[in-house]
């Protein structure tokens, strides 16, 4: 292989990793909510989009609209942005659950699904009215120009940062769900809500926590999306949400590790499609993958066979 190709491929590899990290973060929310109340939260993609807007709004309103050269300030601002955005988004998620989904928790399946679509449109249009229909520039705290070299390829610190953020959040989530008392309560609630109640688990707050975490993760994805692409629009949630959902299904819905894996997989498919010159067709590739997975392995790559659910 000639060096040129190697360079391009290395850089594309890191692009895919970054994109995958964003999808993975969104996919986690889908998978968590689905795992606990078996609802495809259609509004989740829009929550991600709202996250991107809130991060932008927060940064500009505290007076940062360009790159921050000083690493300490940068770290502080980033940490603050993550904290604020994720908290706000978490509460938005909890609010949506409280008012739009909880009343329908025992209704036929179609009802909350339709509500979710309704919520998704509300969020989209509220943002459209708030910020207008055209793309909005986001503060580029960490520009793509800050890079380091690996051989012939140069990698942006931003790519590394996004990847690390995603991995840290995912590991933290995995530990939380797998090891803690609250995580156990979440898993029990997912399996048998009534039995969990009889153990003393407050179902409503457990489900609310699930929404909080899922939405906060989508918020994190929104922040890094803004940082990475530099421009956001009210429509980004819809397509990103679909791709992330595909990622969740691909990995096996309800399975956290699967969602992460699926996210990265989708990231790689997209970058590969762009690399061979079919960027405009990426949604088609992604949904092709979705349909193939559903036909041949509906339980996803890491999901347990559906029959095993008891």
């Amino acid at each position, binding site marked *: 292989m000639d060096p040129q190709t190697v360079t391009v491929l290395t850089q594309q590899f890191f692009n895919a990793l970054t994109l995958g990290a964003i999808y993975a973060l969104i996919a986690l929310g889908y998978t968590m909510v689905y795992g606990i109340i078996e609802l495809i939260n259609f509004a989740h993609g829009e929550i991600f989009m709202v996250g991107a807007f809130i991060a932008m709004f927060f940064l500009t309103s505290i007076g940062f609209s360009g790159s921050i050269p000083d690493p300490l300030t940068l770290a502080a601002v980033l940490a603050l942005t993550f904290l604020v955005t994720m908290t706000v988004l978490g509460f938005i998620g909890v609010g949506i659950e409280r008012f739009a989904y909880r009343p329908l928790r025992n209704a036929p399946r179609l009802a909350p699904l339709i509500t979710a679509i309704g919520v998704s449109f509300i969020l989209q249009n509220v943002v459209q009215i708030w910020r207008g229909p055209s793309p909005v520039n986001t503060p580029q705290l960490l520009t793509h120009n800050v890079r380091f070299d690996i051989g012939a390829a140069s990698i942006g610190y931003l790519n590394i940062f996004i990847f690390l953020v995603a991995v840290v959040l995912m590991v933290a989530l995995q530990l939380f769900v797998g090891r803690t008392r609250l995580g156990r*309560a979440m898993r*029990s609630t997912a*399996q048998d809500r009534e*039995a*969990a109640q009889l*153990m003393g688990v*407050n179902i409503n707050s457990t489900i609310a926590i699930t929404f909080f975490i899922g939405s906060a993760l989508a918020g994190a994805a929104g922040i890094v999306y803004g940082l990475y692409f530099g421009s956001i629009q009210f429509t980004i949630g819809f397509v990103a949400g679909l791709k992330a959902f595909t990622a969740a299904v691909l990995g096996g819905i309800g399975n956290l590790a699967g969602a992460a894996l699926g996210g990265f997989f989708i990231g790689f498919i997209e970058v590969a499609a762009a690399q061979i010159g079919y960027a405009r067709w990426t949604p088609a590739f992604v949904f092709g993958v979705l349909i193939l997975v559903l036909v041949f392995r509906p339980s996803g790559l890491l999901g347990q066979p559906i029959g*095993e659910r*008891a």
Partner: protein
Amino acid sequence: MTVEPAVATTQRAAAADDRGPGTDLVLELRGVQTFYGQIQALRGIDLEVRAGEIVTLIGGNGAGKTTTLKTISGLIHPRKGQVLFQGRDVSRFPAHQLVRAGIGHAPEGRRIFSRLTVLENLQMGGYTRSPAERREDLERVMTLFPRLRERVRQNGGTLSGGEQQMLAIGRALMGRPRLLLLDEPSLGLAPILVQQIFNIIREINAQGTTILLVEQNALQALSIAARGYVLQTGRVILADTAERLAANEDVRRAYLGEI
């Protein structure tokens, strides 16, 4: 919640006997009416359970036995009437608060968490308790059910029917209930296991837990219970001591399978 210390003390086997049955009402239902939507399942249930007793509910399918238990444990709320637990009206309490208050419920069909390990299932049973208490209770339950100790790392779903029932009862005990509601503990078990489960129930009772038992196998249930209530279409039609119920002609004909 000031109930916790009280629960702890009454756990001691002696506590109930000291005061003597009849004086210490753990549970009282007054004219409880429960609905599923428009359909009335309970049409005014009155019953009481005293500390240290085993009380059993008998009745055909649809008589409202399971609904009565669900109403007590707060899974459904009564539309009319009161559920008094240790003298306090708890009819509006959500289920998870009643667990803290001291009501344990091993529901029909066992309902163990099949994708959690046996240990995690038991830990879930002690969800409302402190880590130290949980460890202590874990030891107690494992002693009661040695089979569970052998299978601590296994997923709940891989246990046999009898082991699952043990896990379900053990899990309910992990919350240190003052009152344990058991719904059809022998359902679907091999006849050979049924006796074993009843022995365990008796043992739990002897250790100081008050038990309200719903059982298809009315004969067995009456053999270990102090008193029983016969339910029919959501009403109590007969209430008496277990011996007298077991001797009652109508009961024998309708529920004990003597045709």
